[in-house]
């Protein structure tokens, strides 16, 4: 349930104005955005796919075992912590190609995680208590 709210919140935040690096110390479970790589900057296809995945997962996450839900939540937070760390580094070296690659790769990791978990949760019947 908490993860569902987190995912929905993340989707809503996608349309918010870009944050600056000064926001890097945002609360643990908030989406952060890079000075180089805001979600918007990655293009409309990326935004659409990510929004679909986040909504789909929010709807289906309850089908997964509670321990798996918790681990997914922690690991999404881990990815977002990594994004914040890269943003901080990019503030120091905005032209660093390796940092740009790591940033894009980390966005890709988030999308892959959302896609994989969404697919797994989608294959489990919806919960209807007997």
């Amino acid at each position, binding site marked *: 349930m908490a993860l569902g709210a987190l995912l929905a919140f993340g989707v809503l935040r996608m349309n918010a104005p870009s944050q600056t690096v000064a926001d890097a110390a945002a609360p643990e479970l908030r989406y952060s955005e890079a000075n180089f790589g805001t979600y918007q900057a990655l293009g409309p*296809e*990326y935004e659409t796919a990510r929004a679909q995945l986040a909504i789909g997962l929010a709807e289906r996450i309850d089908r997964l075992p509670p321990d798996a839900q918790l681990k997914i939540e922690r690991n999404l937070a881990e990815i977002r912590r990594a994004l914040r760390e890269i943003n901080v580094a990019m503030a120091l070296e905005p032209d660093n190609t390796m940092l740009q690659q790591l940033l894009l790769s980390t966005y*890709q990791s988030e999308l*892959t995680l959302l896609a994989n978990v969404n697919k797994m949760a989608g294959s489990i019947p919806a919960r209807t208590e007997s």
Partner: protein
Amino acid sequence: MKRAFATLLACTLVAATAFAHEDDDDDRDDDRDRNYGERSIDRRLAADANGEVEVSNVAGSVSIEGWNYNEVHVTGNLDSGVKELVFESSGKRTIVKVVTRKGYHRGGGDADLRIRVPKNSRLHANTVSADLTAKGVTGPLDLQSVSGSVSGDFSGGETEAKSVSGDITLRGDGKPGRLILTTVSGTAQVTRAAGEVNASTVSGELQLQMSKVTRARMNTTSGDLNFNASLMPGVKIEAETISGQLTFDLKDTDAEIDIESFSGDIDSCTGPEAKRTQKYGPGTELQFTAGKGTGRIELQSLSGEINICTR
């Protein structure tokens, strides 16, 4: 950069679209008043020697073995939370699917299955919390579990294993193939694999022991990677982490090596020492050539430590 990323995302976007409209499997009859009871099963169906077998289970265990007969044989026990075992065959496709009573996919509904399939079958198996084992199946393998463990052996060809929190333990037979491993927090441990590997995790650990490696692509967010392998000429290896530790122990290395970290340490037991990328900045890099340099190895980290030994 954006164009390159768009290409990188293409497969994920296709997958996203494919299941964004996936219908829920929620059309079962209301069976709340029925008492199915615990029961054992022993059923067989003829199957194509090179056919496809799909297995799905929620809780309990699944043990799949390849054998020399052209039939699928299912034995095991179903508890009272299991509504039915769907076991059917159509053309080259055989389905073994545990259907739980409503509400039982998150507790109870255990099925412990032993399934024997023609050894050359293409196998797709998925579970929620059930542990999954596959042995002696030489066709392509697609194994996944949410929180159960995934284990077994494989023989070249295509092998894919996925989990959220379950550990993956696989053993190859040294024949070259293509291996794809994905976990969120589970550990993936692979021995005797060869050929190509694509492995990723967020916080889990990747422990890969391979031979005759031609291509490897690995990434972690905070998990550690331990890659112990012998390499083929012309090999291409890419690995990256944000805060995990990358450890490479490579034999028969014939490649240009390019390692860079923003703030992590780089250590090579055989090559030159890493040097700073800027006089006052935190970055370090290490570049050297092992052998004739026909291949390429690129390792990157944000803050994770990178260790490499080449022989």
